[in-house]
Structures are given as structure tokens and as C-alpha cells.
């Protein structure tokens, strides 16, 4: 049964992951231009970033080159992604569990790619990585390491995060049943993964072979039930990931680069941004009298008028 379901769930999960993530990214990328809403410090400001400063600190800033310290930005991103620097500074007790949690999932993401690549290579090439030496052996041993360490770290982190949520009164009240189920589901996936390594497939070679067969759509020899269960749960997890807050893993690009760090100014003399013209042609529906939306009026119409007095304004009588 599991043997039959595993390919279906794995493919379904991967398609949902890729499709869901792509759809979300496209949806956000296609949203209209928004106004600037940056927040300092911004690392690409270069030397000024040390005190949280910006190019606006300069006299006649528009006559000077705009700083864009890509190296500083990448360093800041690396600190955030790898070390969760913001969490460490602002919420150390969370960081203690969040760091192994995230590192575990980074390891697992890497090992998943290695398993997929290695599995496809083995299936199509008709060899076993562990036996070819050189790069094959390196891939094999790296995968083996990550397939053990990833789930272990993630499990430690997940159990810690769950205990923290249950043990802290405030966090508990911000933890709905779905969030608890999510953490328990993760513990289940990680536990099954570790059990598969411990009892059925210590080197992840069987997992790699099975994944290779599934991804190349070939009928395979029977695999241990734990490996098939591992694949089923993996498919379910990656399939629903894009539809939860966990998509922050890639949506942070937007929250940081497109909002928090987006301080690009409009330089004097630049032509009007065509996106502004498009925005001003958008219809406005807000019904408050001073806005006067509806009836085919556009944002351009509204900002061009003086704003009628608001007869329905009910400011608090003092």
C-alpha cells in the first residue's frame, strides 16, 4: 500500500511545492507598486549602516551617488539566514531552539536535493554512488551525513519550540490548534526519517534509489516500508508548506528587499514612473464622503480634488 502511495504523494507534494511557491511569488511580484515604507538600519547603506543611517544624511543627497554595498547586504542576509541574528538579538530564548530547527531544515533541504540528484543519476546511469569513488563517494557520504544530522537537529529544535509554546502562557494563547498540529506533524516526519535511517537504511542509499526510480517514473524494487512512509510524509509536508506562514523561507525576499530595505528614491529629472500613471488610473471605491470613491472616479481624480468636508466624520466629542 505504502509502496503504491509514496510515488503519488511525492510527486503531488513536489508539484504543489513548486506550483504553490511559484504562484505565490508571481502573485506578489505582480502586485502594484507600493509607496516607500523602509525601516532602518539598511545594510546596503555601507558605512552609514553601522549607526542605522541613510543617504538622506547627506546635504543635497540627490546630487551624490546612491550607496549600494552589495557585500554588506549579502553579509547581513547570511547573518539572518544562517545564524538568525535578529532572533538572537531580540529573542534569545527563541533563538536557542530556532537555530537547530532551521539548521536541521537547511540540512534536510540540501540532502533532499542530493538524494534527488544522486537517485536520478544512479537510476539513469545504472551504478551506485558509493561504489564509483571520487565525487560519487563524496556525494554518498555527504548525503549520509545530512540525512542523519538534518532530522536530528530539526527534531531537537521542533521539540524545543513545541515545549516553549506549551510552557509559556503568552505563546500558548497565540498557538492555535493548527500550529500545534503542524509542530506535531513535523515531529512525526522527523521521527520517521530518523527511524528509517536507524532501522532500515542507515546510509540513505535505499532512499536515494527509491527516489531515483520515482523521479524517473520507473517501476522499482520493493523498498523498506519506513522509507516509503518517509517519502509519503515528506510529500505531504512540502505540499502544504507554500500555503502556510512557513513560506516565509522564500517570501522574506519580499518582506526585506521589497519593503524593509527598499529605499530607492525617485531622482529629480527622472521621467514619471509609468507604474504611477497606472496606479492613478485605478478606480477607487472607498465610500467615506471625504474620499468620494465610486461612480467611475479614479485615484487621480481624488487626489486632484480638495477633499470635501466629511459630514459623516464622527470624531469623538470632547
Amino acid at each position, binding site marked *: 500500500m505504502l509502496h503504491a502511495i509514496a510515488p503519488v504523494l511525492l510527486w503531488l507534494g513536489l508539484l504543489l511545492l513548486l506550483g504553490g511557491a511559484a504562484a505565490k511569488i508571481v502573485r506578489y511580484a505582480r*502586485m502594484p507598486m*507600493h*509607496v516607500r515604507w523602509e525601516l532602518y538600519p539598511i545594510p546596503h547603506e555601507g558605512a552609514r549602516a553601522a*549607526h542605522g543611517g541613510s543617504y538622506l544624511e547627506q546635504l543635497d543627497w540627490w546630487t551624490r551617488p546612491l550607496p549600494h554595498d552589495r557585500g554588506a547586504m549579502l553579509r547581513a542576509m547570511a547573518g539572518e539566514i544562517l545564524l538568525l541574528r535578529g532572533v538572537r538579538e*531580540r529573542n534569545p530564548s*527563541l533563538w536557542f531552539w*530556532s537555530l537547530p530547527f532551521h539548521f536541521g531544515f537547511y540540512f534536510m533541504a540540501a540532502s533532499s536535493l542530493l538524494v534527488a540528484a544522486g537517485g536520478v543519476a544512479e537510476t539513469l546511469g545504472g551504478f551506485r554512488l558509493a561504489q564509483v569513488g571520487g565525487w560519487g563517494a563524496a556525494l554518498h557520504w555527504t548525503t549520509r551525513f545530512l540525512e542523519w544530522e538534518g532530522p536530528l537537529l530539526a527534531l531537537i529544535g521542533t521539540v524545543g519550540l513545541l515545549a516553549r509554546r506549551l510552557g509559556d502562557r503568552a505563546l500558548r494563547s497565540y498557538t492555535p490548534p493548527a500550529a500545534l498540529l503542524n509542530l506535531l506533524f513535523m515531529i512525526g516526519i522527523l521521527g520517521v526519517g530518523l527511524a528509517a535511517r536507524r532501522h532500515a537504511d542507515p546510509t540513505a542509499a535505499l532512499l536515494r534509489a527509491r527516489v531515483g526510480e520515482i523521479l524517473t517514473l520507473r517501476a522499482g524494487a520493493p523498498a523498506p516500508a519506513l522509507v516509503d512512509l518517509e517519502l509519503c510524509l515528506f510529500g505531504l509536508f512540502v505540499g502544504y508548506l507554500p500555503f502556510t506562514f512557513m513560506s516565509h523561507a522564500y517570501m522574506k525576499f519580499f518582506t526585506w528587499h521589497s519593503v524593509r530595505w527598499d529605499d530607492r528614491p525617485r531622482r529629480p529629472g527622472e521621467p514619471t*514612473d509609468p507604474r504611477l500613471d497606472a496606479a492613478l488610473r485605478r478606480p477607487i471605491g472607498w465610500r467615506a464622503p471625504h474620499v468620494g470613491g465610486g461612480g467611475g472616479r479614479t485615484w487621480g481624480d481624488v*487626489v486632484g480634488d480638495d477633499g470635501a468636508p466629511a459630514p459623516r466624520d464622527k*470624531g469623538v466629542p470632547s
Partner: protein
Amino acid sequence: MTRRPITPRDLGRRHPDLLTTGELQERLRLPPPYEDFNGSPPWAPLSDDARERFAQVDGVLALGFPQPATPAEEEALVERFLTGLRRLLSADDNWAFLQPLQLSLEHCARCLSCSDACPIFTASGGEEIYRPNFRAEALRAFVAASRRRGPAVLRRLAGRDVPVNWRSIGRLAELAYRCTLCRRCAQACPIGVDNGLITHEIRKLFSQEFGLAPAELHRDGSALQLRVGSTTGMGPAALRDAVEFIDDEMTEKTGWPVATPIDQAGADILVVHNAGEFVAWPENPGATAVVLNAAGVSWTLSSELLGYDAVNYGLWYDDAQFARVALRHAQVAKKLGVKKIVIAECGHAHKALTVVADRIFGVEYDVPRESILTLLADLVCDSGRLKLDPARNDFPVTLHDPCNIVRLMGIVEPQRRVVRAVCPDFREMAPHGVDNYCCGGGSGFAIMSPHNFADWRLSVAGRMKLKQVLEAFADRPDPAVRKYLCAPCSNCKGQLRDLLAFYHATERSGIHYGGLVELVANALADLPRPFLEWNAAF
């Protein structure tokens, strides 16, 4: 008062009437000699009439969401609210903030890293309804309810079930005015979720759909400004009178002939003050004139409608009002033909005109905007055009960082360079710069005092700032030692004025407040007598 934690679901419940104890016994403690404020009642009770008529969250009213008279009215109100929510999430109706809003609605991990960053939550002793994520979670729940997708049990599983009735809607509206939009919480979020933005968007929904906003911000604020030219009610003629009066005062005070140029065609710089300065702190535009004239700067004020009042309250509650005011500001500058607009000491005006309005200006409104803090840093530290004697400022000085100028614009060092150059006894607050705490008067609070709201903003919203100020001067507790709290922002000054008065901090600790340019004027070496006069307010 229930003992279990308050959740957004409680917003719709009839009982308890209040979602706090109304006593806030665990408030942030103040050091001696302010212990008497640690146990005092935080605010006066509302009148019975106000309690009956408006939605209640904590026994305070800033907005006042009226109770509908009939079930039919309530039904219409709910429908209108849900329509407003949909508009908030529509590319047509909310293009200016849609992407940041959606990002913040969809990606919160509910880790509560934001909580301790909030001075209001912390100063209140951890009242749940002031937690930055509380109202954000409430909005997420309302959004889920408005979409009506899937069975209710799924919303409950996801913690997104909130009763949608007049009480929950009214409480959400009132709660939107328990946050100063300082965005310190956003800075603390590892994901980039912005609870301050969510509060901003809630305010917009009620203003743009219901026409409901605090009278001080809308009716007596941006609407008045668009009609007569200024939120002070000052028309162009009154502006000219005020400037003439200030020039006379400055001439008498300094012994120098002080003349403020108005509508000077061909001037390099249009200086735009918060018009409240002309009324409440005339020494600030006066000092500006003294310093700019002494440095030989080519500048002018404008007497065009809106051209002499930099405020833009729409920034805090309404995109239409915001855009209208910002465009008028740019039009005035374009008409004068100046090379740049210099925004005087007003924090939200800085951010509104320089940053937020930046992408709504087309080529026809092409006038660069700059902070007066940057200009002052150049005049004081780099240009050599002012003869200064720092010994004239031989008193302890600390610097308040207005959130809009510092955390939200990254203008951190220019004002420090000025203060270091002219004030030998300068000390920083902790924390400061982009990590500063709001004065508690941000997002319009400084000008809002309906019912008992002033008590709340002083005893809760401003409490952290007062503590910071006291700590900055802790080594000189003697009230006979005059100390200067420098706040280069009109709204911050309004809040600090009220804070110092509420806590008797001038009498008890010798703390006075004022702007930045006054310190520069006071340090002018050739002035025959000091510029500062050391009143409670300068």
C-alpha cells in the same frame, strides 16, 4: 476581568465590558522622586454616557466607535466593515500598501518577538490588548471571516475565528489608536512582518470607508488644512502676522535685525515648518531665521495655502488625505522655483514628504526634499559660516530621536553632529538612534486629548520615554541644574511638554525641552545675550 488570557475572540464578547483591568498595577516603575506615579490610578473614568455610547476596550476613548441604534444598523455596519476589508485587500483601492500589507498578514510565525520591543506594551506591564500582535491577529481573523471560505471549524483550528459584530469591529477601531506606529515592533520581527503597518491599515479602513477618524486628525486636521491652509486654522494673512511678530521678538531678543523672507522668488530653499511652531513654539521658527540669516543662506517661507504648514496627518490614517496634502506641498515649491524644500523640525512631515510621497510625485512635481537637520549639520560643522561658542550651552543636554526621522528615514548622525559641536555636556539616552523609544505622542497622539485619552498617552504611551529621559540625567538629579531635552520634532515636543508637566519633571528634576535649532542659536558667539530663556517651554 477574566483571568484567562484575552484573545481576539474576546473582542466580540459583551462581557467583560473592558478587556483590561483598567488599573494597570504592573506598569513600568519610575525611579525616585517619581514613585508616587507608580501606584496612582492611570486615568480618570469615562462618563457613563461615553461608556454607553461607544465601544470599550480599556476604559479610554481616542476614537469613539458609536453603538448602532438598531439591529438593522448593526447589520449594515458589519456589511460595510467587510466591504472595507475587501477594499483594503484590493489592488485598485489599496495599491499603495497592498504588497506590504499582504506580506504582514500572511507570514507571521506568532513568535511574539515583537512584544518586548513595544514601549506601550512594556510600560503597561504587559496588558494583552496592547501587545503589537494582538490587533494584527484580530485583523487576520477578520480577514478570514470576510472571505468566508471553508467551514468555520477550519478557521477555529487556525485561530482565525472572531465574532463579527459592532462590538468587535468597534473595539478593533479603538485599538488602532493604542499604537503610535513607531514600528519598533517591525524592526524586531525576524520575518519582516510589520504590525505598525497593520495598525495603519486598520485606521485607513475606518477613515476611508466609514469616514471615522479622530477629529483632531481629520476634521480639525487634514480637512482643515486643505480648506484654509493649515491644521492650526491659520490662513496666509495670519501667517504673515505671526512671522512679523516673531521677527520683532527675535530682533528684540538678539539685538540683530531679523527678517524672515516670505515668498521670495529666486530663493534657493523653501523652508516649511510645522505651522504649530508659529503658535506654540515661535522661538523655533525664530531661531531658524536667526541661524539661516547669520549663515547667509538663500531661503524663504511660503504664504501659499499649505505652503507654510508641513504637517500631513493623512500619513497616520488616510491615503487620500495624505496624497492631497503631499501634492499641494510639491506644487507650492514648484511654483516658487526653489532648488529644494527643507523640512523643518517636524518628524512625520519629514517622512511624509521625503519618503512616503516619493513615488507619487511625477516629473511635474520634481523638487528635492531635505531635512533641516542635514542643513544644520552642514552649517554648524562643515561650512564655517557660523561663529559658535559651545560654552554658551554649558548645561546637560540629551537628544530625543523622533521615530519618523531616525528609524524610518535613517537620519541619525546630522543632529548628533550638531549637538556634539555646540553642547559640551551631551549625553545619549539608552537606547537611542534607530533603536530609540517613541515619545508616546506619535501618529497623532500628541495632539489628541478627547475624554481621558491624554491620561493614557502620558501614563502609558509616554512612560518609557520619561524613564529614559530621567535615566539620561540621573547623574544630575538636582532640579536647580537646568537640563535640556532636545526634540527636533513638533509632535514630540508637544508630547514631551505634556509629559514634563504631568510628571512635574521640570520642578522635580529641572528638565526643560526644546528643539535643535534653538541650541545652535544659543551658541552663536556674537549674540549679545543668551537665546534660551529657560521657561518651562522655551
